[in-house]
């Protein structure tokens, strides 16, 4: 038999100033199963809570109504009060008579009092149906998976490992390093990018707690926080990295030369290759789509049609440790993890949609990232900036900002954030490379919000003599050896035409290819551009709506290096905090299946947004639904869809809600 205690809070005058408390108490006493109704000046204060505790014990209450503020405010507080009186904390129901009564009906005290009574009446009807609920404990696999080996992933992995937990880092390219490895210098300090990144890469590869998996991809994810199972595909490297010593003879002697992805097509690499000199691991993979021996094998396998390709195998012949492994195939491994951090980063916008800028037809229109490779001492030109058309040194250079950013028409309305600064950096660097260079930067707004950014922008004007032209160019075309940029100087309100030797398009950031597919695999949300969506943009920037999966860096939105590093560390801190516990407590307000009623139509399985409902087969062969308590978030979507009412939501059961409605008419 339920014994309900009603505690009406004055909240100073917040409630009592409008609602007639004695009248409410009198009415409450007469409600079904109510054994006591008392008031309190401030229920949430320590004396207030103490009086609730005492009343529970004294009157042997087993259900409690606190008629006060919104449950969003103090539900947790009063649950603790119940617990301290030895009562199950879930036997509490709050009647919101402040936010939804006294504060909004202060104009009519009589009406407010009546409404308060009815709200309490409904709460009483509901609380009678409350049952004790118990949180559950689940174990944690204290091992983290980091997806993506750019600066964000590297930082995350190092921080988690340094906290003492095991990490697996999966990178789909043959080397970690990501976009940062391609950069020459970083703004606004002009540090050499490789010089600050490579030590971290080496640290990572040598860390005893970190297992590095390059040339590998995450294929499938199942499970839940603390207990994920992840299928990782190891692509065939055709090189046994345990035997390989990274001597380099194979990639020096390989006869097949192809455009280097790392150098964005500006330089060449071989078919067996490491992407760049400081690659980690410093061991090669064979690119099968270009390898001559592979082509030979295909030729043999497809019936020897056409010309016979050379049966090369030079790498195999020269390898001192016999590390070339032609029989190596791609392999799928399943590993267990407690958490997953997504740090898949970005790629630069493909400007071939900008036909008015020549869509890749002009050799001397390049992207900012290509210029980085040209300026880098380890780049394809050894750090000399030359025109691709004729090898001459450009003397006038125009930069065009916001290519693939702030452009609704191309489906990229967002600001890519880093372009303003990197164009300034590149202009300064070009001036350093060659004092005769004159740079023009076409911009819409210079966005220099960041530490030392504005100063850096001024430095480009003061020291490098850059001419900033406010206006987005409309066309780039060739006239003889020159490129003509047509723009408007919007500050003067007049069209401008500048003939230049080189045009650099500051292409914006977009999520790495395949980010959407990965997000679907992980069951985390992504936006229309395929950027990952954080749980809360302000307060939970590295969490996702799926517990135990975190996001960091440029896969969430345009970020510069320091922000990526900070986010990587933030995600690592979240992981470490989780791993510092031995078990996880799960919320008991979740969906449960009454298997006897379930008819096995499995509509609930289809509509659950969290894949928290699965099905089982009973002994007599029936299909029935079963919820996973760790995945269920308690939204109740399945319950409303269930015709036989075989699934119910603890804390918001059909009985509770129906009685709450009916309570209004008691």
């Amino acid at each position: 038999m339920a014994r309900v205690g009603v505690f009406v809070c004055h909240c100073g005058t917040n409630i009592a100033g409008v609602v007639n408390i004695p009248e409410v108490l009198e009415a409450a006493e007469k409600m079904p199963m109510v054994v006591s109704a008392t008031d309190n000046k401030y229920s949430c204060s320590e004396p207030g809570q103490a009086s609730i505790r005492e009343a529970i014990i004294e009157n042997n209450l087993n259900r409690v109504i606190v008629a006060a503020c919104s449950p969003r405010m103090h539900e947790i507080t009063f649950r603790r009060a119940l617990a301290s009186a030895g009562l199950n904390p879930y036997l509490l129901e709050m009647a919101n008579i402040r936010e939804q009564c006294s504060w909004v009906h202060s104009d009519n005290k009589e009406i407010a009092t009546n409404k308060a009574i009815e709200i309490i009446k409904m709460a009483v009807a509901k609380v009678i149906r409350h049952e004790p609920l118990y949180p559950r404990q689940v174990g944690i696999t204290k091992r983290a998976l980091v997806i993506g080996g750019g600066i964000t992933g590297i930082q995350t992995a190092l921080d988690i490992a340094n906290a003492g937990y095991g990490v697996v880092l999966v990178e789909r390219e043959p080397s970690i390093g990501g976009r940062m490895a391609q950069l020459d210098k970083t703004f606004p300090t002009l540090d050499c990018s490789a010089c600050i990144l490579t030590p971290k890469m080496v640290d990572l590869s040598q860390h005893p707690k970190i297992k590095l998996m390059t040339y590998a991809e995450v294929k499938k994810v199942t499970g839940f926080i603390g207990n994920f199972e992840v299928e990782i595909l190891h692509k065939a490297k055709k090189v046994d990295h345990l035997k390989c010593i990274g001597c380099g003879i194979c990639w020096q002697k390989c006869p097949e030369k192809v455009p280097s992805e790392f150098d964005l097509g500006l330089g060449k690499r071989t078919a067996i290759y490491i992407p760049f000199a400081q690659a980690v691991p410093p061991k090669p993979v064979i690119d099968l789509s270009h390898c001559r021996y592979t082509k030979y094998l295909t030729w043999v396998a497809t019936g020897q049609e056409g010309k016979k390709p050379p049966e090369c195998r030079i790498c195999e012949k020269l390898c001192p440790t016999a590390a070339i492994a032609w029989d190596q195939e791609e392999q799928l491994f399943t590993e267990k993890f407690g958490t997953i951090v997504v740090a898949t980063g970005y790629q630069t916008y493909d400007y071939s949609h900008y036909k008015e800028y020549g869509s890749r037809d002009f050799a001397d229109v390049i992207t900012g990232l290509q210029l980085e490779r040209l300026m880098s001492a380890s780049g394809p030109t050894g750090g000399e900036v030359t025109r691709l058309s004729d090898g001459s040194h450009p003397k006038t250079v125009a930069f065009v900002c916001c290519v693939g950013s702030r452009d609704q028409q191309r489906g990229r309305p967002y600001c890519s954030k880093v372009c303003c600064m990197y164009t300034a950096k590149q202009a300064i660097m070009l001036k350093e490379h060659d004092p005769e260079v004159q740079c023009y930067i076409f911009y819409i707004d210079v966005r220099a919000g960041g530490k030392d950014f504005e100063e850096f922008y001024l430095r480009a004007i003061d020291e490098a003599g850059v001419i900033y032209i406010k206006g987005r160019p409309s066309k780039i075309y060739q006239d003889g050896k020159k490129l003509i940029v047509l723009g408007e100087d919007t500050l003067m309100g007049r069209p401008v035409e500048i003939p230049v030797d080189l045009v650099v398009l500051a292409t914006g950031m977009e999520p790495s290819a395949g980010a959407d597919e990965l997000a679907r695999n992980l069951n985390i949300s992504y936006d229309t551009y395929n950027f990952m969506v954080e749980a809360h943009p302000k307060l939970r920037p590295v969490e996702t709506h799926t517990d135990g999966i975190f996001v960091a860096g440029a896969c969430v939105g345009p970020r510069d290096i320091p922000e990526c590093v900070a986010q990587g560390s933030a995600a690592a801190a979240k992981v470490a905090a989780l791993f510092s516990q031995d078990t996880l407590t799960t919320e008991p307000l979740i969906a449960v299946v009454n298997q006897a009623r379930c008819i096995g139509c499995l509509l609930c399985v289809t509509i659950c947004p969290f894949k928290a409902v699965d099905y089982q087969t009973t002994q007599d062969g029936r299909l029935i639904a079963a919820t996973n308590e760790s995945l269920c978030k308690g939204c109740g979507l399945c319950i409303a869809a269930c015709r036989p009412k075989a699934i119910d939501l603890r804390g918001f059961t059909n009985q509770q809600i129906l009685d709450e409605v009916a309570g209004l008419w008691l």
Partner: protein
Amino acid sequence: MPGVDVITPKPITELRSWVETLSGQKVARCYQCGKCTAGCPVAYVMDPTPRQVMRALQLGLEDELLRSSTMWICFYCMTCAARCPREIDITKVMEALRLVSAQRKATPAQKDFKLFHNLFISNLNRFGRIYELGLGLTYNLLGKHPLSKAELIPGMLARGKLSFIPHRVKNTDRIRDIFNRIKAFEKQGKP
């Protein structure tokens, strides 16, 4: 240099709401990047430039806009609309400004453009088709530039490309009916 007027912005003006209704474009979307002007083949003879027209609309500089010749110089090549990163059809805005200007019988600073278009319409009204020589001659007469393009006339005549007699449609009444019904509709606001 003459002094400049101080601008008092008027965010909501009748002109702007007319332009927005007629063009279906949201003026406020423009973020003044200038790509329209940069690509406009005739921006160099415009004052204000297309971007400045958008700004003037945003600020509600009604008189300035109606005095300007920009929308009459614009010849609808639609380059601006095709390239606008904010997906504003600026050509439609220009068209709307023309319509308002025509309706209010405003006088642009450079009268010739508007004159040409008005003559074109009356030419159409009269013959149903365009009588190129007649249109050219009337324009030169009324616009007081008797020699414009005159040097081409002999060559054109020699090649049989101009005719002294207008091509008329057989039934010009039908054209006049269309004009009249439009006039009637515009007066009454309903068919």
